[in-house]
């Protein structure tokens, strides 16, 4: 049993390393080409933080079964922490330009600080909030998400007017984390490493006593506590663990974007970083499947990108492209379609695994065949 597990780990590591090196070669070959630099690399950056964000919400929503609508608030905390820390370091003279080695250290520190601060705050919020369940929890997390945005807005040094001095945009872009298109290519490896590490850590969390406990809480909280599971401990811990990675996603976000504005994390925002949008990603991918979240984040990013930037949109009749001006309508439509036709999401609770891919496909095919035969038989009898 264990040798199979370690073989699986080895296989995964090898594949990840090969893919990673492939990516590195690709960037070094095509790094200066226009479309690669301006479209593909920024898209990968965005996908990276969306994947981490969706997977982290899946811990709370999919594995623990608690609806949290304030997840982007923790992401905002992470984004602002990382941005402010990097600016402070620049001002303190710790690095001068982004090719310095010391900048890399600042970058790592910013990402960690973003995660830790988000986790701390979610811990404080989680203690009272997680006493509630269902709709009540959704509303209170929604409220806390809004409170976080408003507090950030009104802090003198990180409000909408800018990060301390001058406009946030220029300052962050020039001196802080904000990466230009060249730096994005240069630091693509960093985004990939952070994403892979985050996903791995979350996967390890889910496949341990913690994952078992929170899935037990999702299935039946009363039975979980009657089996000796300290439900409030595991709930608050998972909430904080998930917020840590939301914070990390926020740090990646502030690397990707030249500007930081609280309105992009707000609940009323029609853009991609609305907390409901993340919920849509998790539901689409499958509640309880991290690989599902990763796939769904990519799909939703693609959909979002296409309806905003796709050339084909212009050729559509006005009535259709009119809808596309309200992306939230499209996301709502996606969510409704998913719930109607595949209520468990694309992956359900299935986790993609290289090692089990072939046996899994075989099993799924057999199951489908059996279902078909059953249906036929039912028809013959009916």
């Amino acid at each position, binding site marked *: *049993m*264990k040798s199979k597990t370690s073989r699986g780990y080895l296989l995964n590591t090898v594949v990840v390393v090969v893919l990673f090196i492939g990516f590195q070669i690709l960037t070094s070959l095509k790094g200066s080409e226009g479309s690669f630099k301006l479209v593909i690399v920024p898209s990968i950056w965005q996908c990276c933080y969306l994947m981490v964000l969706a997977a982290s919400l899946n811990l709370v929503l999919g594995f623990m079964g608690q609806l949290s609508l304030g997840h982007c608030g923790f992401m905002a905390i992470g984004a602002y922490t990382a941005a402010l820390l990097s600016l402070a370091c620049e001002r303190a003279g710790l690095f001068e330009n982004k090719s310095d080695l010391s900048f890399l250290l600042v970058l790592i520190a910013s990402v960690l600080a973003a995660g830790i601060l988000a986790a701390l705050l979610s811990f404080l919020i989680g203690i009272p909030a997680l006493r509630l369940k269902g709709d009540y929890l959704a509303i209170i997390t929604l409220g806390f998400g809004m409170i976080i945005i408003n507090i950030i807005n009104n802090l003198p040094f990180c409000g909408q007017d800018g990060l301390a001095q001058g406009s946030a945009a220029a300052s962050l872009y020039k001196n802080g984390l904000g990466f230009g298109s060249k730096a994005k290519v240069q630091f693509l490896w960093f985004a990939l490493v952070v994403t892979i590490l985050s996903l791995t*850590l979350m996967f*390890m*969390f889910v496949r*341990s*006593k*913690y994952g*078992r*406990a929170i*899935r*037990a809480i*999702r*299935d*039946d909280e*009363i*039975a*979980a*506590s*009657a*089996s*000796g*599971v*300290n*439900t409030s401990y595991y709930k608050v*811990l998972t909430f904080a*663990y998930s917020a840590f990675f939301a914070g990390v996603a926020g740090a990646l976000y502030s690397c990707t974007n030249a500007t930081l504005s609280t309105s992009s994390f707000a609940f009323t925002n029609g853009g991609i970083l609305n907390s409901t949008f993340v919920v849509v990603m998790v539901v689409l991918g499958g509640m*309880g499947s991290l690989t599902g979240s990763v796939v769904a984040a990519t799909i939703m990013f693609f959909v979002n990108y296409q309806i905003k930037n796709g050339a084909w949109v212009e050729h559509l009749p006005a009535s259709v492209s009119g809808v596309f001006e309200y992306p939230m309508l499209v996301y709502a439509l996606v969510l409704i379609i998913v719930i109607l036709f595949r209520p468990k999401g694309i992956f359900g*609770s299935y986790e993609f695994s290289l090692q089990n891919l072939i046996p899994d496909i075989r099993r799924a095919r057999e199951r489908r065949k059996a279902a078909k035969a059953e249906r036929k038989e039912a028809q013959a009898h009916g």
Partner: protein
Amino acid sequence: MAEERVPVLETRKLGISFGGLKAVTDFNIQIFPGELVGLIGPNGAGKTTVFNLLTGVYAPTEGTVLLNGKPLNGKKTYQFVEAGIARTFQNIRLFKEMSVIENVKVACTKDLHYGLFSASLRTPKFWKTEKELTEKAMSLLEICNLADVAELPAASLPYGRQRKLEIARALATDMKVLLLDEPAAGMNPTETAELLTCINTIRDRFGIAILLIEHDMSLVMNVCERIQVLDYGQTIAAGSPAEVAANPSVIAAYLGE
């Protein structure tokens, strides 16, 4: 003899009222190690409420629960389990989407000797603990004849086996007292007989005390050493099965006067 032994579970004047309704009043019971005690009564007599009081789901409005002489007032459900009281539910409550063996592993809360760090980095400690957990869970499943379905989802088991899985899960908590809430409800005679052997094996093997709520009178009369009868939240009789069966107020409660 009986006077010298220390009861493993004891309640003193235990009671709870919901608003003006006194669901249970003045409930006193002593259960000794290795004993099998039955708790019976008509529908709505307060049997399940007693179980909820004994497991910390409800906080009693009066009286105390003592485990090995230590009061458990103000503790939460998981602390009751930690102290050594485990239960099953009248309407089965399994972790439906988890596999059978995972259901048992969840309850092994006393055997989890690793933290977040070990879990994240998969240290040897993690593997060792997980291996021990699997062994323990499998041995418990074998006792309850569930080893062959260990990897199946819990919801896919037939009713009788789901009941047994609940018992296996309760056993995993290393409890001293096991509370069984209508374990034979909805079972056919064969399943009931199998369940009985299972309960007896557990009692012999672990030396635990069992408190049993049951409507199946033949089962209660056959296996319980002592029986306590509740009606409208009050104890109306207690004693050996024969004594209880002959008690006029018990007959009145069950059949009406």
